[in-house]
Every structure is written in C-alpha cells, then in structure tokens.
C-alpha cells in the first residue's frame, strides 16, 4: 500500500515534467513532419520522427497513460514502415500523421487536466486509428518475405559480424519497448543470419504475468554500421535491457578504443568481456585461477596479468581497461558532472521570483551607493561600486536565463501556414529569418497570439490564389516571411508577404463608413494604413473562418502595446505588405541612461542612446513645440526640447546637453539639462492614470526614492515629429506630464 502511495505522489510530482517534455516532443514531431514534406524519404528525419513518437510512448507508459501509449503505438507502427522504406510519405500520409500528432497533444493535455474527454474526440481518435492501421496494415502484407535471405554482401567493404546478446528487463513491455521492433530496426542495419531466443527463460503459463518481459536474445549481426549505430537501436530501451556487443575480429587497439568509450563499469573483467576482448568463460577461468593462486600463496595475483598469460590478451588492452577503471574509481562523482552538463529544468515562477528580488536588489544597491557617495568616504564608495558591478553581472546573467530564441514560436506557424493555405486553395511558402534572435520568455509567450493573427490575416487577405498571382505576373507560390532581429534594445519582428497589398482607398472608405474618420477628410497616406489598427475597423462583412473572428487588428495592437511595443504597417499595392512589431527585449530590467530636466528625472533605454553632446550653449531658436536643429558633424540633427514638449515649468539653465537617440532608422536629439549617467533601471509599469502618457513606456524608482519616467525612444520621436503636422491636435499629454512629474520633486 505504502509503495502504491509513494508511487502516486512521485507521479504527481513528475507528471508536469513529463507533460512539458511530451509537449516538446509533439512540437518536434510536428516540425519534423513539416520538414519531411519538403524532403520525403530523408532517413535522418524519419529516424528522428520515430524517436520522438517512441519517446512519447515510452514515457507515457511510465506514467500509466494507457490511452496515449495505445494511440502512439499506431503512429509508431506507421512511422516504422516509413522508416523501413516499405511505405513512402505521401501528402495524405503527412496530413494523417499531423492529425495524429494533434490527437496525441489532446491526449497529453487531457492527462494534464485529468478531465474526461468528450465522446466526439474519442470517436475522432478511433477514426484516425482506423486510418493509421489501414495505412500501415495494407503494406504489412506487401512487405517481401523476410525469410528469403538476400544475397549477403559480405564482400562489400566494412561489413563485419557482431555478436549481440541482449537481456530485457521485466518492465520492458510496460515501458513501451517492443523487442520485435528493435530487432526489425537492426535488420535495417544489416543481416541477422541467426538468432536465438532464450525460450526456456520464459516461464510456463502458471502464475505467469503476460505483461512481464522475460525475453533474452543472442544473435549475430553482419553490418557495416558502427557500434554507436547498433547501440542506437537500443537507445530507448537503454534502461530496459542489458546489452552486450562483441566484435570478435577486432584488433587490440580497437579494444582499447572501445574500453575508453565504455560507460561506467567498474570491474576489470566486465570491461574486457563487454568489449569482447575475452569471453565470459575465459573470465571465469581467470577468476578461478586467481582465487586458487590466492589460496595457495595467500596473495592474489592481478587479474589482468593472469588473463594476459591465459588468453594471450594484449597488454595494451589490459592497461586501457585498468586506466578506465582507475578513472572511474577516482571520479565517480566528478565524471557525472562532466557528462551531464546539458540542461536543467527550472520552473518559470521560481525564475520570476529571482528576478523580482533582483529588481529590489538593484534599487537597494542604488540607494546604498548614493548614501556612500554622500559620506565621501572613498573606501565605502569603492566597496559600493564593486557591489554595483556584481549586481549588474547577476542581473545580466539572470535575465539571460529567461531568454529564448523566437524561432520556436515562428516554427509553430509552419503548420498554420500549411493548413490555412491548403484550406484557402493557396500555395504559400513560409520563410523564417533570424529565428535565433532571443527575447524574454514572457514576451515570447504573449506575442504568439498577435503573431498568429497577423499570419492568418496575411494568408487570408494578403496573399492571392495561384491563378490571381499568375494573372498579376507573379510566381504562383506566395511567400510569407517572418523576420526577427535586434534593433537598439528592441526586437523587431516583421511579417512580410508578397501578396496584393493594401488599397488605401478602400481602407479610407471603410474608415469613413465606420466613423473613424470624418467623411471627406483624407489623412496623409501613412496615417490611412494605421487606421487598420483602430478599434472598430475590422468588419464582419467578410467573416472567414480564419481571420475574421471578430478579433481585429486593434486587438493585435493592444496586445503589442501592452508589452511596451509598437506596430507599424507599410504596403505597396500589388507588391505586398509588411507589418513591423517592435518589442522590448525584456519586461523587467534594462540599462538606462538617466537625465534631468529641472527637478524631474527621465530615463532613456541605453541601447537607444547613440551619443551625447555635453554642456553646449543653450540654443535659443526653438519653435512653438520646442523643436530646433543642431549641426552634428556636418549633418543636421532635429532636436526636441523636453521642457517645452512636456510643458515642464522650471527655469532653463544656461547650458544644456543633447542626447542623440536612435529610433528605428532615424536619429534625433533630445535637449536636457543634466546628464546623470548610466543607471540600472528596474521597469515598473505605469499606473492606470498614466497609461495615456505618450512617449513614455514605464517608470522606475531611483536610489533616492524618486520616480523617473522611462522614455520609449520610437514613441518619443514620433510624438516630436507628429506635432510638425499642422492637422493633428496639439499634444494632449503635455498637461498630464507636468502633473505627473512634478509630484516627485
């Protein structure tokens, strides 16, 4: 009973890990299937596919998820046929496998939430099982008779005879292992001229547990495959079998290499037997001799020397085995580390906790170093500087922990594009550029839905059918590109299609209809396209199953802006459209550049700061919105004055500095009173009241307890240039800004 209880609690603990891994495998399966459609018959891909399915089945078996095991078994059978080459992957089979993969996903999620599944899904699954069995069943009969030996090509270079003995453990079946499948796989590597099953090891029927595995085999394998390749066949059963591979015609130096490559196995005799340098019988004779000699003299001669004399074993081999043994004795704990330097899994919320604490630490550290500076004690200041540097280091590496490449998210769209394009009768290829670009996990998770919407939108409205494309003189296959790159502290994601583009006239007409723009008013071209992102623009007029789900582009924009990002759109009629999403790399802490205007403090993201022009004479020629130009190395740089832009009322100092900011492809200068230098900025969201504040993306608490607003470089630039446009209203936020900034004086 106790055992059962502890099993149960163990499972409850480990199940989430399994689910996470299973979902990764499912994702990988899907990607591999899609990749395989491009290059059917690619052996490596097929092997990888099979491994994925097998891993899911195997670990589901461990958790007693019988339904998953049962279903995946059918998928695996089909994959096995594909791998053997007895079936070729047709698009229909590909679709079937993708549907099956969806089913596995449903099953896994059902296991996660432990809810009973509705009858329909069970029925749907049964239908897929039927199709899977049909697909693999038909061919099962058409495979040639394996009993008929093919002409042995032993003459062909590199074919050697291996002796394999394998003993499966009792749980092998329950863990989803099928020795038959493993043997069939090995037959793909080479010939098995003879095989012996230890049939007597199987107990007689009485009291026999048919699900307990008692099988052990000995067989020869003629193959050109390497030891690793042979072992790979047993990869999934590694814990469920004892495998011995023996290569009788190997030379001493091969054995030495094998011994070096062997897994932990601390007994000399076992090492030698396992690589096949000596036989089990020779070993037991050696051990016997050793024991006899010990009885006679009271001192046991070394086994290695005995074996050398009795079996003619090369001294090199013994030396290598002894060395291996030595190493293992020395470093049983150390070697584990070096072999296992892969990955550890950490729960995301634990990481979040660390980052929260880190935020507090950064603020506290800034406070401490400020106090230290006030004391003017050099020792204290230096100590604090050291602490600040360390905090910065911890901050960078901690944030790095949360960074994930966006490629995984992009790759998910392959399936969407494939299915959606097929549904719409379009031919579209998805191109992914910059998938290795990293950004915060939280951002990745929250950007997936908006991206999905944009991708569907492009497929539905942007890209044309092959006929339309040919008629327009374009290649029949449409191209959708997902592109990601870093750009001054932001990540820039572009969704580019080469479809029909957006007709601004139509957009405008609809905007008039919807009352977004007063009838007859024609805003500038660039403004018209932006109307697409306005709430209420999406219409039910053309509800398709795909993009017209009532969720409009305004939702996309809101989601992006909630991440402190921005969306922009450009389009050329007949050529295609491009949607640009800019997002901050992280939501937590950034390197900032602190400046002061009067008593107010502001922060620019350091990545956006190009350079500063310090301490210059304050220019007088400012227009009504506080704009002017300065000359920077022979080029004119537009400059905006924060004091006037945000209507901060404090006396203007005699000298001021200009911070040169890069926003996208443009540069502009911002006139400030004082430069306060680099500052580790813990980003706090703006309160509800301040959400409407334009050009600002967040706030931060300084070491002194003051609050500084964080500028969004792109938005500020836009704000500054917008006021140039006579048709737009004066900056409404100016009043807000002074209200909100002054209280923190």
């Amino acid at each position, binding site marked *: 009973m106790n055992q059962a209880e502890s099993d149960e609690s163990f499972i409850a603990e480990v199940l989430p890990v399994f689910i996470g891994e299973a979902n990764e495998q499912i994702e990988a399966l899907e990607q591999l299937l899609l990749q395989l459609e491009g290059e059917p018959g690619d052996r490596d891909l097929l092997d990888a596919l099979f491994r994925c399915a097998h891993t899911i089945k195997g670990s589901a078996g461990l958790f007693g998820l019988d339904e998953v095991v049962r279903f995946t078994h059918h998928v695996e059978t089909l994959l096995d046929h594909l791998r053997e080459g007895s079936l070729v992957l047709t698009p229909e089979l590909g679709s079937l496998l993708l549907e099956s993969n969806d089913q596995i996903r449903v099953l896994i999620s059902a296991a996660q939430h432990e809810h009973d599944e509705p009858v329909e899904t069970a029925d749907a699954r049964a239908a897929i099982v039927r199709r899977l069995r049909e697909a693999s*069943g038909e061919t099962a009969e058409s495979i040639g008779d394996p009993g008929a030996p093919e002409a042995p090509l032993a003459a062909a270079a590199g074919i050697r005879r291996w002796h394999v003995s394998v003993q499966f453990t009792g749980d092998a*079946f329950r863990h989803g292992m099928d*020795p*038959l499948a493993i043997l069939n796989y090995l037959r793909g590597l080479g010939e098995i001229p003879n095989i012996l099953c230890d049939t007597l090891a199987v107990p*007689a*029927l009485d009291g*026999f547990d*048919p699900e307990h595995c008692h099988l052990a085999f000995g*067989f020869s394998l003629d193959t050109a495959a390497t030891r690793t390749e042979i072992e790979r066949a047993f990869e999934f059963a590694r814990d469920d079998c004892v495998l011995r591979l023996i290569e009788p015609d190997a030379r001493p130096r091969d054995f030495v290499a094998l011994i070096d490559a062997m897994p932990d196995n601390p007994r000399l005799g076992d090492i030698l037997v396992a690589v096949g340098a000596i036989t089990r019988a020779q070993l037991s004779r050696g051990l016997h001799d050793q024991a006899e000699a010990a009885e006679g003299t009271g001192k046991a001669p070394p086994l290695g020397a005995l074996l050398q004399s009795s079996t003619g074993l090369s001294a090199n081999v013994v030396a290598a085995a002894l060395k291996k043994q030595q190493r293992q004795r020395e470093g049983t704990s150390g070697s584990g580390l070096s072999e296992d330097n892969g990955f550890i899994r950490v729960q995301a919320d634990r990481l979040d906790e660390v980052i929260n604490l880190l935020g507090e630490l950064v603020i506290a550290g800034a406070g401490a170093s400020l106090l230290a500076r006030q004391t003017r004690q050099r020792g204290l200041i230096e100590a604090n500087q050291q602490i600040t540097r360390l905090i910065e280091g911890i901050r960078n590496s901690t944030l790095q922990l949360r960074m994930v490449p966006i490629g995984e998210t992009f790759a998910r769209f392959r399936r969407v594009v494939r299915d959606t394009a097929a549904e719409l009768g379009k031919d579209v290829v998805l191109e992914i550029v910059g998938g290795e670009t990293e950004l915060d996990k939280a951002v990745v998770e929250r950007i997936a839905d908006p991206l999905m919407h944009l991708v569907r939108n492009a497929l539905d409205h942007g890209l044309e059918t092959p006929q339309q494309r040919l008629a327009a003189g374009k290649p029949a296959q449409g191209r959708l590109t997902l592109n990601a790159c870093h750009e001054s502290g932001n990540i820039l994601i572009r969704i580019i299609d080469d479809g029909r583009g957006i007709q601004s006239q139509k957009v405008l007409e609809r905007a008039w209809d919807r009352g977004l723009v007063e009838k007859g008013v024609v805003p500038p071209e660039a403004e018209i396209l932006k109307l697409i992102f306005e709430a209420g623009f999406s219409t039910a007029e053309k509800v398709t199953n795909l993009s017209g789900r009532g969720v409009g582009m305004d939702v996309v924009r809101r989601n992006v802006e909630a991440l402190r990002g921005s969306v922009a759109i450009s389009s050329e009629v007949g050529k295609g459209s491009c949607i640009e999403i800019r997002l901050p790399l992280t939501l937590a802490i950034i390197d900032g550049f602190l400046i002061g205007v009067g008593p107010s403090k502001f922060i620019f993201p350091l990545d956006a700061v190009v350079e500063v022009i310090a301490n210059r004479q304050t220019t007088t020629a400012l227009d009504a919105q506080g704009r002017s130009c300065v000359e920077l190395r022979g080029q004119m740089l537009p400059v905006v004055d924060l004091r006037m832009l945000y209507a901060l009322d404090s006396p203007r100092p005699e000298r001021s500095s200009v911070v040169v900011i890069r926003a996208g492809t443009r540069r502009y200068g911002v006139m400030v009173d004082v430069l306060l230098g680099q500052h580790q900025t813990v980003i706090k969201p703006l309160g509800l009241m301040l959400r409407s504040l334009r050009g600002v993306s967040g706030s931060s608490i300084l070491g002194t307890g003051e609050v500084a607003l964080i500028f969004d470089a792109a938005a500020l630039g836009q704000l500054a240039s917008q006021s140039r446009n006579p048709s737009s209203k004066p900056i409404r936020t100016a009043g807000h800004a002074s209200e909100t900034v002054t209280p923190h004086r």
Partner: protein
Amino acid sequence: MNAARLPAELTIYTVGELYPHCLEWLSRAGSFVSGQAPEELRVDAAAVAEVDAAGVQLLLSLANALRPHAQSLVLDHPSPALARACSALGASTLLDGSAAKGTAE
C-alpha cells in the same frame, strides 16, 4: 478439437485478455493427456494481423507449459505477420509443425 483461436491483435495490449484463455486451453489439454497418448494443442493463428514480442512471449510461455505434459503447441495456419514475428524473434520453433501435422522441435 479445441476451439482455440488467437485474436487479430496479439500484442502487449491484448496478452492480458488472452492469458485466461491460454490457461483454459492448457487445462483442457491437460485433461486430454491424462488418459490419452501425447497430443498437441492446436491453436488457430490465421487471424493474427498485429503481433509484438509480448504476444510471441505468451505463445512461448504456453508452449513451455505444455512441455511437461509431453505436448506441443501447434499454430494452425499462422498468418504472415505472426510467422514473420516468430522468425524475427528467433522463436521459429513455435512454427514447427504448423504447415503439416508434424512433430515439434
């Protein structure tokens, strides 16, 4: 004649169900042997479409259980799938005597 018949699916998923049947076949075979000359247990194996190592293992176990009674297991008309699996697993002895009424081993 024993109405012993193997199902279409002879895998890890069905061996549990099949096991009691095997016991029953065995007990019937046992009663045979008590009065009669050495016999064989014939099992119709024509329907087997899907088979794995667990399925073959059950047949091996049945065959091993018959041996003390000096009996042998004869698979009647083994399906190609079953025949392939037996030979692949080095358990071809199971197929002995299946074509004609032959002797086991």
